[in-house]
């Protein structure tokens, strides 16, 4: 970690560009000042510090040359305070942290995003398109509550990928839950299932359903799940705040991306989170 170029302490940079994707989601971008460019893998995250307030984990949403972007959805005090900041405001960046997605294969790809779970997957989509020397199918299945929450939809529709949208209120695309959509899509698509790699991020209850579906298709080893509903403190695997039962793996360093076969052995997956005080709370009771 210390060998490669990496921010161990928050580096405070002015917000370079800001726009709202919808009324509660802001895209913030920053110019990294260094000479050399930082190595960042999709699925990795930064700790974003709002000086004098708090610090929260946010996935890298886009990174090219020296511009790094984050998509932040206001759900609580800190995320809401950050999205209210304007250009030139200083935000601290600490990272990148965590184990990102593995892109080292030639398979076709299904990407499944639920709500703000699209944040790390946007970076993934662009990396898959730009860094592939092979031609492969990329299918993006994106779900949200309503049309305005289908973040980056117009951008995706212009990319050389198949897109498939669904909304809970039917305001765009398929009318229903993303898990219903996936089931049928996978059934139809996966003629040679092992030729497919599946990437997903979203609410943990959704991820849990996707794991079950993948298991039914014996595809759990082809499934890469990014957890993003969890409390992170240190980011580098030392404080123990983010460890998940029963395997005793950390989200912050061993994750946030796990293979389906590993996450299948995690009792807490989709069931319990742990708050800042380390006590468990059931996922079912809270909704984003």
């Amino acid at each position: 970690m210390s060998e490669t170029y990496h921010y161990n302490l928050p580096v405070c940079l002015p917000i370079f560009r800001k726009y709202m994707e919808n009324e509660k989601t802001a895209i913030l971008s920053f110019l990294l000042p260094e000479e050399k460019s930082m190595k960042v893998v999709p699925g990795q995250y930064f700790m974003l510090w709002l000086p004098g307030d708090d610090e929260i984990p946010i996935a890298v949403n886009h990174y090219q040359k020296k511009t790094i972007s984050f998509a932040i959805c206001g759900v609580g005090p800190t995320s809401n305070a950050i999205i209210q900041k304007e250009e030139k405001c200083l935000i601290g960046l600490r990272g990148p942290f965590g184990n990102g997605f593995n892109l080292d294969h030639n398979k076709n790809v299904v990407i499944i995003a639920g709500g703000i779970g699209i944040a790390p997957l946007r970076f993934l989509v662009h990396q898959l398109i730009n860094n592939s020397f092979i031609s492969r199918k990329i299918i993006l299945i994106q779900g949200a509550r309503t049309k305005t929450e289908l973040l980056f939809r117009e951008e995706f529709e212009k990319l050389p990928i198949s897109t498939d949208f669904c909304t809970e209120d039917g305001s765009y695309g398929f009318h229903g839950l993303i898990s219903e959509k996936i089931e049928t899509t996978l059934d139809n698509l996966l003629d040679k299932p092992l030729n497919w790699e599946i990437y997903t991020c979203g609410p943990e209850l959704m991820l849990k359903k996707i794991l079950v579906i993948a298991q039914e298709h014996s595809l759990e080893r082809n499934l890469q799940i990014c957890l993003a509903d969890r409390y992170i403190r240190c980011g580098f695997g030392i404080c123990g705040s983010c460890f998940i039962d029963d395997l005793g793996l950390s989200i912050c360093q061993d994750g946030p991306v796990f293979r389906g076969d590993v996450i299948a052995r995690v009792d807490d997956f989709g069931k319990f989170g742990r708050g800042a005080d380390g006590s468990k709370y059931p996922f079912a009771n809270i909704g984003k």
Partner: protein
Amino acid sequence: MKILKTTIGNVEIRNPLILASGILGSTYSSLKRLFHEGLGAVTTKSIGFKPRKGYPNPSVLYLPEIHSIINAVGLANPGCVKFGKELQKIDSDVKLIVSLYASSPEEFVSVIDCIRRYNKKTELLAFELNLSCPHAKRLGIAVGTDPEIVREIVKKVKRTSRIPIWVKLTPNITDITKIGEAAVSAGANALVAINTVKAMLIDIRTKKPILGNIRGGLSGQAIKPVGLRAIYDLYETLGSKIPLIGLGGISKWEDVVEYILAGACAVEIGSAFTNYSSPNILISKLLKGLESYLIHEEVSLEELRGVAHE
């Protein structure tokens, strides 16, 4: 690795390496894992009477230039009721030390009673008293900086518990041996030193302290010479009768040897787990190095203890 067997008072562990409190050990699974990856014993995060969220983030930062950590976690913990229950899930072969904090003797007793009530299953190696909490009645002073309060805490706690009581000392004090003496005179079964060293960081762009709590504590390689001296001083004052457990910046097997030569029977490891993809890489490096040294020097751990004083 029989030669690594270690005795701390009446308890025996398979090797002298113990997980330090507040590092990785917030959940039953991570404690279990760390033990199974090779440590002699594991210490839990410090547990208090009530749940505590701790301080806002950033609260744990790595300082690569000095291979150290600055933290102000603020004793985040789920409280003794929930944690007592959680402990039941740990297999009984795991050698477990439960770290506790409180701001008065009575509260320490309550936390111990509570842990014992909710955790009927797991046998504990010891309770480790973290005395860094501010004193309930005497504003602004940490309980661990006043010999009188320390004596009272240890006395009360000893009356409650038949499980050995280890007292963890802070280095942020004029004379650490005074607190050590107070704890021992009140019946402490072992002393653990050191906790983190008072520290802080400021961001020069926003001109604000970086830690959510402004102030924090330094751990890791920067404090190794500080912890080593604490153990040396304690051994010199208290002699070999009271077991000492050394910690602070241990990252190499050579550091473990230094601590034992200074007077420790065993050591705790904390910040050094930073940058290891898996804890067992560090643990096995330390154990192997230690074993070869003992073989090369033809000496046992017990014989090695305190030799730097000769």
